[in-house]
């Protein structure tokens, strides 16, 4: 059966750029797939999560340096549930996919430290989301002066060798190295080991207030800034420092470091790196030079306007012609399955059980250990063990929804995939022995897996 142009656009909109179909999506989208993706860009209410009862930065920070692991875990859980819930709302979900992309660009693990556990959700909600259609430089600076990243990449105790405090500590290069290698210019971006070292000196003193400092009123700690970012001038390496050929004079406070981040954010190699990552995440494992150059040019021309870059991504001709060869990550798959069923199944009492499939598939949100983020290569996710567990995981979620499901499963398949449901998949779902087996098959259809 030939797939109509409208159905083809629906599929690309919902799979390549979106979070997967909700029941009735094909009829609501009709022939407007591409237009609806573009219409999401720049609409801030789509990106933002109302804080409601979620903690403020100060509260999250205080818990992160407080005594209770459980309190930090509770915050993490509430933030994750807000993330799940948000993902149920949009018809397409391109903005949400961009939020996930940028969060992963600055990947951290909550298992590094309690302060990361208690503030990661806040960072994503209040630093990433408001800037997802803003300037890249602002997102970069926001993330890198957040206590979560300072803790995650070990900058909190990094001390300039020639600073006032130089004798009682050492330089830690982790954060500077990863900013260069992962967050901005990227490997092959023209920096040297010396640049890493110089940049690490530039950001000495970027730290956060430890619990004991708040308790004892030491080093600027007060009862009110527990866990918050703090700049420690006596830890900062004095003098002019040179990064990638440019000299940065000393300034009061964080100015010197922010100036380096501005330089890096505007660097053509950064533009190229971001362009490459966006094309690879959304469209193809093998970005072409033309695709990367197109987005890179927009990034540079607009001084890192991420709305303009997102628009350029959607407007790449191949975006609407290449077949969906990429595979949803297990997390993306869970979201798509929840949307297909109409709600996120995250009752508090069973939170660990719902995480079990994501743990088994090595894709638990906010728990990627190294800073390089979840891999965007299809081959990493498309492996025999994972393919087998994906089915078991779908069955696991299926059993959650089974009791409350009403109606016919073949009808649900039609309401989800419309004109892009293959004959084989339609037949397979319909041939299931009972509603349970039909639902299991529905939740693992190739139409849902590939994006």
């Amino acid at each position, binding site marked *: 059966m030939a797939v109509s142009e409208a159905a083809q656009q629906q599929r690309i909109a919902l799979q390549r750029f979106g979070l997967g179909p909700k029941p009735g999506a094909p009829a609501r989208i009709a022939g407007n797939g591409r237009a609806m993706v573009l219409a999401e860009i720049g609409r801030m209410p789509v990106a933002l999560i109302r804080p409601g009862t979620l903690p403020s930065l100060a509260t999250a920070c205080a818990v992160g340096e407080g005594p209770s*692991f459980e309190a930090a875990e509770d915050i993490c859980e509430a933030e994750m549930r807000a993330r799940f819930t948000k993902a149920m709302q949009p018809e397409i979900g391109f903005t949400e996919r961009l939020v996930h992309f940028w969060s992963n660009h600055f990947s951290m693990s909550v*298992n590094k430290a309690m302060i990361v556990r208690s503030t990661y959700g806040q960072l994503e909600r209040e630093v990433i989301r408001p800037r997802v259609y803003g300037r890249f430089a602002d997102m970069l600076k926001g993330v890198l002066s957040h206590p979560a990243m300072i803790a995650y*990449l*070990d900058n909190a105790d990094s001390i300039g060798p020639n600073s006032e405090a130089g004798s009682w500590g050492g330089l830690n290069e*982790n954060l500077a*190295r*990863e900013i260069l*290698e*992962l967050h901005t210019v*990227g*490997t092959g*971006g023209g920096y040297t080991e010396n640049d890493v070292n110089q940049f690490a000196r530039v950001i000495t003193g970027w730290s956060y207030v430890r619990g004991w400092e708040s308790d004892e009123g030491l080093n600027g700690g007060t009862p009110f800034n527990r866990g918050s970012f703090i700049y420690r001038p006596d830890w900062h390496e004095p003098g002019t420092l040179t990064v990638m050929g440019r000299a940065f004079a000393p300034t009061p406070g964080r100015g010197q470091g922010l100036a380096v981040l501005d330089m890096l954010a505007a660097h053509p190699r950064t533009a*190229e790196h971001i362009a*490459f*990552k966006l094309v*690879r995440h959304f469209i193809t*494992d*093998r*970005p072409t030079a033309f695709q990367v150059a197109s987005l890179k040019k927009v990034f540079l021309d607009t001084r890192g306007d991420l709305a303009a870059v997102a628009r350029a991504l959607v407007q790449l001709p191949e975006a609407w012609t290449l077949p969906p060869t990429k595979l949803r990550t297990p997390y993306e798959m869970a979201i798509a399955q929840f949307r297909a069923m109409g709600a996120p199944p995250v009752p508090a009492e069973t939170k660990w059980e719902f995480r*079990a*499939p994501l*743990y*088994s598939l090595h894709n638990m949100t906010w*728990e*990627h*250990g*190294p*800073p*390089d983020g979840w891999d965007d*290569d*299809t*081959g*990493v996710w*498309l*492996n*025999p*063990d*994972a*393919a*087998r*567990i994906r*089915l*078991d995981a*779908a*069955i*696991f979620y299926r*059993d959650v929804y089974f009791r409350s499901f009403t109606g016919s499963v073949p009808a649900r398949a039609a309401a989800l995939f419309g004109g892009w449901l*293959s004959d*084989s998949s339609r037949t*397979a779902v319909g*041939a*299931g*022995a009972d509603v349970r*087996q039909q639902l*299991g*098959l529905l939740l693992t*259809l*190739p139409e849902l*897996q*590939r994006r």
Partner: protein
Amino acid sequence: MTHDRDPAVARLEARAAAGCDEARLLLSRRRVLGLSAGLFSWAMMPRRASAASTDPRLLVVILRGGADGLSIVAPYGDPSYASARGSLAMTKSQLVDVDGFFGLHPALTNFGTLLKAGQAAAVHATCTPLRNRSHFDCQDNLEAGLPGIVGSNPTGWINRLLTALPADAPIRTHGALEIGEAPLILRGPAPVLGWSPTWFEPAWDGTVDAAQANYDVVDPVYGGVFAAGIATDRLARQAGGSFDGLGGLRLAFTGAGRLLAATDGPRIAVVTAEGWDTHADEGGPTGYLADALTELDTALGDFKAAAGTAVWGQTVVVIATEFGRTVAVNGTSGSDHGVATVTLLAGGAVAGGKVRANWPGLAPAKLYEDGNLAPTTDLRAVFKGVLQDHLGIARGLLDTTIFPSSAAIAPMTGLIRATTSPAPVAARATPVAAPPRPPSPIGLWRAGLDATGG
């Protein structure tokens, strides 16, 4: 339908909650270190459950949490042992005597039998080169194989081993196997085969078959990978329902044995076991540690049975942990993070029957920093000895690529039976600069290489 939780996981979570703060982070951290696996290679698919090849096999077992070497292989003959360990000390009659000085924990039934038969050995007072007693740092150190604190984005030493071998070396061709978690030790560009003994209920065969048939029509590439996953799982579990009732660790060891034995299957496997962080109620001949050792020892027996006699004869199992425990009992009838510990070896290729140690002694003046067993053997020396004499890996490769900057650490000799001959092809490998970090996609793209490596 209800999905009961894996009782082992529930028990571990309870232990973690009662243990040190770091342990709680560690438990969840280790579930998802991140995808270690490079891209899957079809050449690694285990095809039949038979053992035609004589390639050496290696199973690395990592005990997470810092296992108490002084109770696993107790130096009961040390004059200071009883007084230094206090209520954790066991008597000679409670232990399985090895040589009049060391005695095995009584829970090590299978291991003890193997040791008497010359197929198991222990190396005592071993330690990673790191001494800071942090679970995170020391586990990363053990698995990255680096001399000190590990940076934020490392590769694992087994993956570097695979990367450095000639393309026709069987160890490289058949790859390595990760069981369950994706441990750092396997992280890097070389392909890794995974098999995870999940605890949630597998899909019915009818659903599997229906899904397979549809994939084969709509998405044949996915269908092929899915078929391989189902086949691997069935090979690991083998028909007959013998997995029923096995805990997570026994499941993992059984599957590892079957897959290592399979024709064209992997030659190296890694299994990790949580729950060795015995801060409280550690116990003696019975109790928490004894239960954990019983599970490990039973699992080792399962592995031997699953591998079969021929493959067991070609196998070395190395059981290592990130650090030992304090010599003295603590205030909660347990022990705290320490330094040196014991490393266990088992398998038909092991030159066994003994406990090897340059024993530092437990007298107060002999202890290392506030009451710890002093390390006298670098853990890397044990690993290097096994790799050199069992897998035939050349010294230059060991000193640079696999364990960078470790030329001063000589491989421990005499761990492997002289009659087993290592694969000669491995010796051809020339030392290359270790990829200390995984290759980055943008770096490969800029170098004009396909970012997928394909």
